[in-house]
């Protein structure tokens, strides 16, 4: 899809008055900014390693509120035990299948009134999301509420049309409250482009456990911007699993705007065939005494490729920062490719920072050691890969979510260790 394809789609939606009148001027304004910036190419520093050919060669129709088809959609495959489930079909809020706790509000808006986000980075896809989004979902916790049961938001793309979907999610964790939110992206066999923007704000002394699962079909691209703002004494735990999709790109921005805040980011990509997954992070330490870590791993099979580009900025006033970055990648085939680039930018002097990156094939010594104990090569390989990923998954605090992630890993392994 090129610029004029996007332009045609946008003009069509405007002329059909798909969006509320009040939002139209800002949409037009934002869209013209998008046109000015243009689509990223390999010449852009931040897009140098991201393979966008899937988006360039496919065309998508942009969703309208009517695309939320009801019907009977079987979501039982995606059930995670002991969670509240919120289902969003083709970007549009459909149903909440269980009673939400009263300390939690989920509000949705599907005509695009409430769409102006707080903290937007003017990247082309975020501009597209801002101008095209026709639905938002906002999750707010009450102050002091401790919500144990995770909220599982299932973004499901389905139907026969090739759609571009622009969901927006706002998460507000009020002061001294805590919650676990799981975002999961799945799609059936058609081709989709999900372009998502998520904004999380974690207030003083609050905590958010955030899990994101990208399990789209081979025909789907997912580009998502995640913006997190943290206040004093807040905690943010993020884990992402990518085990599907043709193209998956996450841009994660965490702003540590309060003192004594903690921000742990981690992720696992399980890739094969021609899949591409890129994770770009900017962790910005603005205030003193904060702790941050980035711990990302990938297992790449076939001719899959991946990017880890983690940047941690420690600003002048953020003394006593403790920051770690680690990226480890396992290549199961000679055609697989990983581009790893952890970066630290430090402007304060009293800080503790470390970073490291390794990329390599399975350890032959370890394989031989196991085989010499009677374990066959296939099983030894499984044990090694499981050992590699389990460190990350074991860190997930919720047992049901952990089990679900291991189940997904086992499925992936079944297809990738034959």
């Amino acid at each position, binding site marked *: 899809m090129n610029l004029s394809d996007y332009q045609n789609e946008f003009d069509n939606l405007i002329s059909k008055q798909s969006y509320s009148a009040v939002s139209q001027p800002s949409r037009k304004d934002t869209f013209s900014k998008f046109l000015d910036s243009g689509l990223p190419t390999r010449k852009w520093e931040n897009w140098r390693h991201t393979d966008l050919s899937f988006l360039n060669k496919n065309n998508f129709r942009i969703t309208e509120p009517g695309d939320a088809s009801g019907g009977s959609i079987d979501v039982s495959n995606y059930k995670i035990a002991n969670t509240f489930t919120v289902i969003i079909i083709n970007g549009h809020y459909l149903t909440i299948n269980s009673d939400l706790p009263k300390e939690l509000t989920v509000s949705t808006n599907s005509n695009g009134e409430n769409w102006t986000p707080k903290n937007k980075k003017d990247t082309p896809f975020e501009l597209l999301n801002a101008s095209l989004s026709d639905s938002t979902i906002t999750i707010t916790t009450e102050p002091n509420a401790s919500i144990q049961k995770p909220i599982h938001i299932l973004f499901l793309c389905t139907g026969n049309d090739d759609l571009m979907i622009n969901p927006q999610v706002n998460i507000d964790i009020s002061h001294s409250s805590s919650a676990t939110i799981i975002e999961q992206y799945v799609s059936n066999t058609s081709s989709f482009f999900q372009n998502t923007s998520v904004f999380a704000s974690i207030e003083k002394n609050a905590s958010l456990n955030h899990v994101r699962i990208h399990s789209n079909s081979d025909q789907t691209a997912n580009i998502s911007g995640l913006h997190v703002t943290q206040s004093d004494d807040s905690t943010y735990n993020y884990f992402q699993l990518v085990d599907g999709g043709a193209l998956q790109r996450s841009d994660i921005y965490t702003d540590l705007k309060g003192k004594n805040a903690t921000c742990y980011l981690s992720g696992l990509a399980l890739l094969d065939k021609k899949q591409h997954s890129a994770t770009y992070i900017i962790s910005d330490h603005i205030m003193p005494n904060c702790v941050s870590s980035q711990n990302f791993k990938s297992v790449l099979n076939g001719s899959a490729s991946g990017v880890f580009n983690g940047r941690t900025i420690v600003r002048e006033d953020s003394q006593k920062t403790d920051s770690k970055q680690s990226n480890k990648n396992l290549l199961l085939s000679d055609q697989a490719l990983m581009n790893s680039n952890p970066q630290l930018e430090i402007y304060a002097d009293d800080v503790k920072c470390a970073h490291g990156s390794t990329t390599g094939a399975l*350890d*032959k*010594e*370890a394989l*031989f*050691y*196991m*085989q*010499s*104990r*009677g*374990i*066959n*090569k296939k*099983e*030894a390989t499984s*044990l*090694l890969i*499981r*050992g*590699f990923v*389990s*460190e990350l998954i074991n860190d997930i605090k919720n047992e049901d979510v952990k089990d679900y992630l291991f189940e997904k890993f086992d499925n992936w392994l079944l297809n990738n260790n034959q």
Partner: protein
Amino acid sequence: MLEVKNLHVEVEGKQILNGIDLNVKPGEMHAIMGLNGSGKSTLSNAITGRENYSVTKGDIIYKNESIVEMEPNERALAGIFMSFQYPTVIPGVNNTYFLRAAVNAKRKYNKQKEYDAASFLKFVKSKLKEVEMDSKYLKRAVNEGFSGGEKKRNEMLQLLCLEPELAIMDETDSGLDIDALKIISKGINNYKNKDRSFLVITHYQRLLKYIEPDVVHVLIDGKIIKSGGKELALELEEKGYSWLES
């Protein structure tokens, strides 16, 4: 049990073993001594089937069959075990889980019922006692953070669990304190019987004080240049290797 015939082995294009002959009968214990770099570990690796250790000439016969074409795990299932000179660390793989996978592979091969987690724990507890090893080592990743001596004990534990018929001990005694040396020796002596054979590689006569080899071989430059009784070990301890080399 094991017959090594005129064995020539190349590692990465380099000829290391130049015609080794060995004949280890059931119930026998053979010791191999020799200078650093003479090829002792290469011989162990060739017998256990490590990748890139190619047999260019000669044969390895185990229980009357050539094993040179067999995968390492097939050799292990057939009853060959090597205690590694440098045991491998496997991050992320839990020691109990690994050991159970190995024991179950063997039990499956023997058409025995595989252990579940609980029954395996009972089984392994008794073995731990024999090597006087704390069960906390089972909770860690395989050999991760183990001291040199702890790794060797872990090798011995694996041996006891897997019950091989031919055990190759590649410098299992190196780096052990006196107490550990006694425990390992006792383990070997208790384990040995008329159907089980040992090939013990060592630099030290002190090990041979605790265990009694039937034959001692001297390996130099990829060849066995002398074999004898256990008194040969004493002689080596006294005179070194130079008198043999001329």
